[in-house]
């Protein structure tokens, strides 16, 4: 195993130091024989951890594979991603989650931590074998029907309770389905003008409130996926104050883009939950800064060209996120590097139960880290992304902050801006 000496990194954007990577860890042993990497002024962060990634494999390998998604993740500074369960077949058995986990190991670019479905086939009715997935080689701890809401309150209550046995957490896609029948975008003045069916904020908030009450009642852990409204933030604030064990994530796109993007009718801006208003963005940024929202998660959702280059109503919701998340958060999150490390690495690693991730790159820690050039700007070119799909909403934008190197267990997965495999 090669030993690397990273010269002159700025640890979490602060003091300059050298980092020695040997045997998969950061060490303070002798630097003799180490390969020296000039990292002068690069910000060293713990490798980023994504709580919400759609890798599409198995089933839609034309949009993304575990390997292509892993490469995109590494290039975005990630060392671990949680792969959502809405694949074909659904990741609702030990067999499927182990398959995804093994594909991740084989790709070797990030740790792929499978998320298990809450209910069989994401059907919302019968609990999947949550214990079997937890006990599998994939050691699943996060369960989610993402893409669908576990809408039945009784099923949700049972799921929350059941996973207490193995410290699991239910990650809810909060969307009351009866309030979003046919919904296409945020319900507001833009949807009225565009004649697109509205997805009201209350459809999210009603579920967030209900689930917070349920989690409090049964003393279980709840994680709220992709919070998108100011109202949800208020409910979360109340729930946390009341002692409910709830965590929440926000996506980079909900921190930046508004429903006005839909005016082009370009489905690259169609996403679920939908892009909201400037007031919602302000509330989400404030919540991320004060910790009411615990983490940034990408909801990276690759889609094949034919699923996006079509009528808005017929397009699939979702946008790419892995390769742009750090830059978007750096530009728009109002966070310093230490806070970015907290929201994009330490806290998500803790929520996902990934002990080897989310640890600051100091001697003794596993060598899972990323190095960012804070001065660099780069232009988003959809054809240059490593993802198997092109549906980025940031095409053509010049973004600050570029990932230069990423290390997973001491080995570079990204070196000088290029994936190593």
């Amino acid at each position, binding site marked *: 195993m090669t030993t690397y000496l990273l010269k002159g990194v700025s640890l979490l954007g602060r003091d300059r130091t050298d980092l020695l990577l040997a045997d998969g860890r950061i060490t303070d042993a002798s630097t003799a024989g180490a390969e020296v990497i000039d990292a002068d002024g690069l910000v060293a962060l713990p490798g980023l951890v994504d709580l919400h990634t759609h890798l599409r494999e198995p089933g839609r390998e034309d949009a993304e594979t575990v390997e292509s998604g892993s490469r995109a993740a590494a290039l975005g500074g990630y060392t671990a991603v949680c792969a959502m369960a809405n694949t074909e077949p659904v990741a609702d058995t030990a067999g499927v989650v182990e398959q995804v986990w093994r594909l991740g190991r084989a790709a070797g670019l990030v740790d792929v931590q499978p998320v298990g479905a809450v209910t069989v086939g994401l059907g919302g009715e019968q609990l999947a074998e949550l214990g079997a997935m937890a006990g599998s080689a994939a050691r699943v701890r996060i369960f989610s029907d993402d893409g669908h809401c576990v809408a039945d309150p009784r099923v949700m209550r049972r799921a929350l309770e059941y996973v207490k046995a193995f410290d699991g957490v239910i990650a809810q896609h909060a969307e009351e389905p009866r309030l979003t029948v046919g919904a*296409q975008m945020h*319900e*507001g*003045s*833009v*949807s*009225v*003008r*565009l*004649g*697109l*069916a*509205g997805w009201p904020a209350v459809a999210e908030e009603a579920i967030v409130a209900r689930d917070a009450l349920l989690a409090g009642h049964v003393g279980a852990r709840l994680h709220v996926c992709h919070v998108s409204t100011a109202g949800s933030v208020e409910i979360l604030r109340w729930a946390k104050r009341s002692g409910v064990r709830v965590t929440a994530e926000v996506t980079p796109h909900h921190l930046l883009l508004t429903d006005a993007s839909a005016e*082009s*009718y*370009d489905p690259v801006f169609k996403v679920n939950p939908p892009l909201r208003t400037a007031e919602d963005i302000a509330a989400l940024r404030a919540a991320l800064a004060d910790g009411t929202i615990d983490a940034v998660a990408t909801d990276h959702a690759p889609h094949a060209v*034919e699923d996006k*280059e*079509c*009528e*808005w*109503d*017929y397009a699939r919701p979702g946008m790419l996120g892995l390769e742009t998340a750090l830059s978007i958060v750096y530009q728009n999150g109002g966070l310093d590097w230490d806070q970015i490390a907290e929201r994009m690495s330490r806290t998500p690693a803790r929520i996902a139960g990934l002990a080897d991730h989310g640890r600051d790159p100091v001697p003794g820690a596993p060598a899972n880290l990323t190095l960012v050039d804070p001065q660099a700007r780069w232009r988003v070119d959809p054809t240059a992304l490593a993802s198997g799909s092109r549906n980025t909403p940031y095409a053509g934008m010049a973004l600050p902050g570029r990932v230069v190197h990423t290390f997973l267990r001491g080995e570079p997965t990204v070196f000088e801006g290029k994936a190593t495999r």
Partner: protein
Amino acid sequence: MIRHLLSAADLDAGTATEVLDTAARMDEAIADREVKKLPTLRGRTVVNLFYEDSTRTRISFEAAAKRLSADVINFSAKGSSVSKGESLKDTALTLQAMGADAVVIRHPASGAPYQLAGWVNGSVLNAGDGTHEHPTQALLDAYTMRSRLGRVDGLSVAIVGDVLHSRVARSNVLLLSALGAKVTLVGPPTLLPLGIEDALASGTEVRYDLDEVLPGVDVVMMLRVQRERMEDAYFPSAREYTRRYGLDGARLRALPEHAIVMHPGPMNRGMEISPEVADSPRSTIVEQVANGVSVRMAVLYLLLGGAK
């Protein structure tokens, strides 16, 4: 002149007035002729691309194009590659290869004409997209008001019914407001989108009581209401809808004497409009159909550079 007509918002008061004036000239020019045809667009190709059954709108556009001597190709979703799942983009590329100078598109998805406009070089005319807009309907409605009442500026217009699902209502609010009319939207709150007062044009009013509104209007435009909406709990029953928002003889008599009754068709007789009202001399419903051809001739003429 503008290149596409995708939304009534593409038309400012000056451009809209130019369309209406041109339509009036078209009417006169045709009336003087034995053969109801003008040579203006000879050699140009107009494609009617219809993803929804709407014989009346298609025929109206077809007649308009033919009276201007354009070649017309009807490309309907029925019995073509469209229904076999060819994408809008592939269809657009086909039309592009055929050299279409203008594509008239009717589509069930809001915004489809915008995407089409990005994929073809010719002009795109929105002939109704989802629940978004139907700009030529608004133009023909304005034309009808002008020919019956002499003006649009300063008129008080009530649009009654299912505004939520109506592309006709959206285009009319935009166009009539631009032309100086005051628009009041009337219906059950479930069928009036939240925030519509400010979403389209400032000065738009929302009212829930039809009987309060009628005595003060110059024009009442009744929208088609589908009975199936009651299954989605928009209103309790067809009978209750008609009682509260249907235009019958008694309500007709509550209108000022000069006021006219409009309907974009097709009508649900007995639902939003009673047969007595539909067939009364105050109803402009048949005229609207005739005016549709004139207005669409004017739009094709102006978009296809007849004015250059």
